[in-house]
């Protein structure tokens, strides 16, 4: 697994959530936002559409719109204001969609 960006400092005693990132099984904790779930499993959420590289969110409060990710059924979610759920299947394509 890629080194995680976010580090858990507290609130570790919560039910485990199992979800999938780009086909890879991952774990998060109940109450994690999708952003936290992704960034405790790696260092990026998506790639910029304009070729300037990976992005991993910015404001964490639903303002900057940098953290939009997609489920494998095409549903788009703002990662910082959505909560991770069991069985979620996230795709983070490395080229723009």
């Amino acid at each position, binding site marked *: 697994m890629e080194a995680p*960006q976010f580090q858990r400092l507290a609130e570790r005693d919560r039910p485990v959530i199992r979800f999938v990132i780009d086909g890879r099984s991952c774990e998060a904790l109940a*109450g994690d936002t999708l952003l*936290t779930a992704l960034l405790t499993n790696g*260092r990026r*959420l998506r790639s910029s*559409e304009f070729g300037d*590289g990976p*992005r991993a969110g910015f*404001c964490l409060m639903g303002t900057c*719109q940098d953290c939009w990710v997609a489920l494998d059924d095409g549903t788009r979610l703002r990662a910082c204001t959505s909560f991770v759920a069991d069985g979620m299947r996230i795709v983070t394509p490395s080229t723009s969609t």
Partner: protein
Amino acid sequence: MGDRPPIVIGAGPAGSRAAVTLAAAGLAPIVIDEAPASGGQIYRRAPAGFTRPYRSLYGFDAAKARRQHEMFDGIRSSIDYRPDTLVWDLKPGALHCLAGGQSREVPYRDVILAPGARDRIIPFPGWTLPGIYTLGGAQIALKHQGCAIGRRIVFMGTGPLLYLVAYQYAKAGGGVAAVLDTTPFAAQRRAVPGLLRGGGTFAKGLWYVAALRARGIVVANGIRPVAAEERDAAVSAFVYRNAAGKQRRLACDAIAFGFGLSSETQLADLAEIPFAFDPVQQQFLPERDSTGRTPVRGIYLAGDGGGIAGADAAELAGERTALALLEDRGHDVDKPRLAAIERTLRQSAGFRVALEAAFPFPADLAADMSDETILCRCEGVTAGEFRREARALDADEINRAKAFSRCGMGRCQGRVCGPAAAVVLAAALKLPLERMGRLRGQPPVKPIPMAVVT
């Protein structure tokens, strides 16, 4: 006009207090909140199942946060509270809101806008790299999710939030590499007399600095950001110039930065409230008087969404504004209470000025932004492209510059790049900032699915 309930948009300190004041008068307001629970950003509630006590989450503000939450929870059953709901358009007499994938038109008689604020930033080379967040974002990661944004974090920028968040991280066991303030120490020393008027706030600030230094954390003033360096597709170091002009490089895996706050003004714009340039905040702000009334009948404005004054002032403004609405509906209100609130709010206005003097927005960082720096992170527009397009097509204000360059045209609608872009443009044209105007809003104020409107 019947007996439509008043609407409050926002449930932070201002909106919560407005709602409680209206409920106490026997009205049952509709309270529309984008978040899943009341508290706004400063008193954001942890998700269900989290166990840290209030003291751990909110520090010195623990008692205030608890009072805010309990006060709002106490009226839940007597109001129409709509969390997880976005007001995406506002027109005379009706607003549109989105909840659970469905949009509803909600007619209104009167509305209190309490949308709050967001971080204010200035781009620097490498700022879009993974691992780089706003100070507010870093605080949310810790407060709301119990996470540090990295293992070894540089805190940079200016403002009280810089010291507060760095201290909160240090106290929670996060790795604070350094706290770097762009404001020269001399400026802060000069601002002390004004800051002392703010009572506890100044003392708290000093306390945070002392506490950080006591942990051996470097706290430096008068710095200039140079660049964030990248390795393995994420931030790996922060390069800056210290007060003596010497270049320094700090290894890090995260940066949290910001230069004060900006008011969220999109709904006020759609409500057709006139705006005026506020020289203290260096932002165009919607006009409101000391009662919270705006020039638009039936529209009121409370809290940081009309000018940054902090959570305590926002609470009082929320109450004052609700009392104005009640007066306008013909209710009797407690006149001495009105006068007392307005007196306190006048004092906080003086403190605002002192705070801006102690932590000035370093506009020169924007004016001097290198051409290669990404200015608009939504659309990938560099400062050089922005300057080039603006000059080539004679853009003389920010909306034309946006139309020609795409800067400000992306998903955030100029929330992130707007303040810095206006300074870049003003400097490129050698004109005063005020002449650049302000980015005009369009609905939807945030991205919504097409299915909602088709």
